[in-house]
């Protein structure tokens, strides 16, 4: 029944978060059911950590995203994270440029308008959408905390978010320019863009703790697991199921 699907999805998402995070607990086995969550002032879910009978913010951060066919959960230690997944072949009902003009920044509209091939334009649109969503979710201030028009996400060297041979890592770094908030320096955030299972784009945005502390950017170590909660975990990093588009060496 169609009505059942979103509820099943929400349940799966919750199971995924709990079983994933339980894997990271340091002190022996943790029952996923015992994990406690709360929402920050803007409504972003966070993990609470019991330390000497007090419930504090946990150094573990997570974020989830789901589409009709995939639920994703990203976990980091000591850094804010936002993740968004979208079907590769997703089409929108509106004209892409009309939509972009309404919601994206001027530079992003220009970037999309410059792409002549409609299929490539559609792909880049979906990638850009996931990157923007991931950034806003990482900030944790809600959609209105960082309206889409107030920041631009782009490749440092310009051009599409596509993998190339002989990547010059500097030129292919995904960066964000925020007009409104000077605190949101480009260097504070790292982006990854992946293709998952040949069917989805996944964008991950993480706080760059190294930059925040004035150190060099630390390269991201990413491990991807394909999981059936409570049943089966399969590490798919390094397989065809995970193709890095940008951000990973």
């Amino acid at each position, binding site marked *: 029944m*169609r*009505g059942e*699907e*979103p*509820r099943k999805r*929400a349940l799966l998402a919750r199971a995924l978060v709990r079983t994933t995070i339980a894997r990271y607990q340091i002190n022996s086995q943790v029952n996923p059911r015992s994990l406690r969550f709360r929402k920050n002032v803007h409504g972003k879910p966070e993990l609470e950590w019991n330390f000497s009978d007090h419930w504090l913010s946990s150094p573990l951060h997570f974020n989830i995203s*789901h*589409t*009709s066919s995939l639920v994703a959960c990203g976990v980091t230690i000591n850094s804010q994270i936002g993740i*968004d997944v*979208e079907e590769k072949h*997703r089409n*929108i*009902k*509106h004209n892409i440029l009309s*939509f972009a003009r*309404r*919601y994206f920044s001027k530079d992003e509209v220009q970037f999309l308008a410059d792409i002549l091939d409609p299929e490539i334009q559609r792909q880049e649109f979906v990638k850009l*959408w996931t990157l923007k*969503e991931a950034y806003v979710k990482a900030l944790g201030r*809600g*959609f*209105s905390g960082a*309206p*889409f028009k107030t920041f631009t996400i782009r490749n440092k060297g310009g051009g599409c978010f596509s993998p190339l041979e002989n990547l010059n890592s500097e030129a292919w770094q995904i960066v964000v320019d925020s007009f409104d908030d000077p605190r949101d320096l480009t260097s504070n955030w790292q982006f990854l863009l992946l293709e998952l299972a040949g069917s989805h784009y996944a964008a991950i945005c993480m706080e760059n703790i190294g930059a925040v502390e004035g150190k060099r950017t630390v390269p991201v170590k990413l491990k991807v697991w394909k999981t059936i909660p409570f049943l089966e975990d399969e590490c798919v990093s390094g397989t065809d199921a995970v193709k890095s588009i940008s951000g990973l060496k």
Partner: protein
Amino acid sequence: MASIATSSVFFPVSSSLKQNQVSNLKMVSLSFTGKNFRSLRLQPSRFRVACAAKPETVEKVCEIVRKQLALPADSAVTGESKFASLGADSLDTVEIVMGLEEEFGISVEEESAQTITTVQEAADMIENLKAKKA
């Protein structure tokens, strides 16, 4: 040696309104001289008062939602329907808002767009914005 005994006392809150009765009531928006006090964010509470939009508006919103989510014409979409429960993801919700802007000739700020989760809330917001335009 003195011993201190503490005990917790619970006062169960009994309400004559059961959970499923409250869910039918909607949020009220406080308007002073035509401006909404955005800083007065009403947290979801047990008491919500209905300021319902016109049925035609609600029906139009249902139509737009059905179209966006490619739902069959006879699928159950009503004022109470939550976008997320109908299968809308974030991209769908933004498209729905865009569709509403086009249909009703209004402009929805992103802050307002974020607070809409049901058909009724969308319809109420539309009536609000249309009234402000007039």
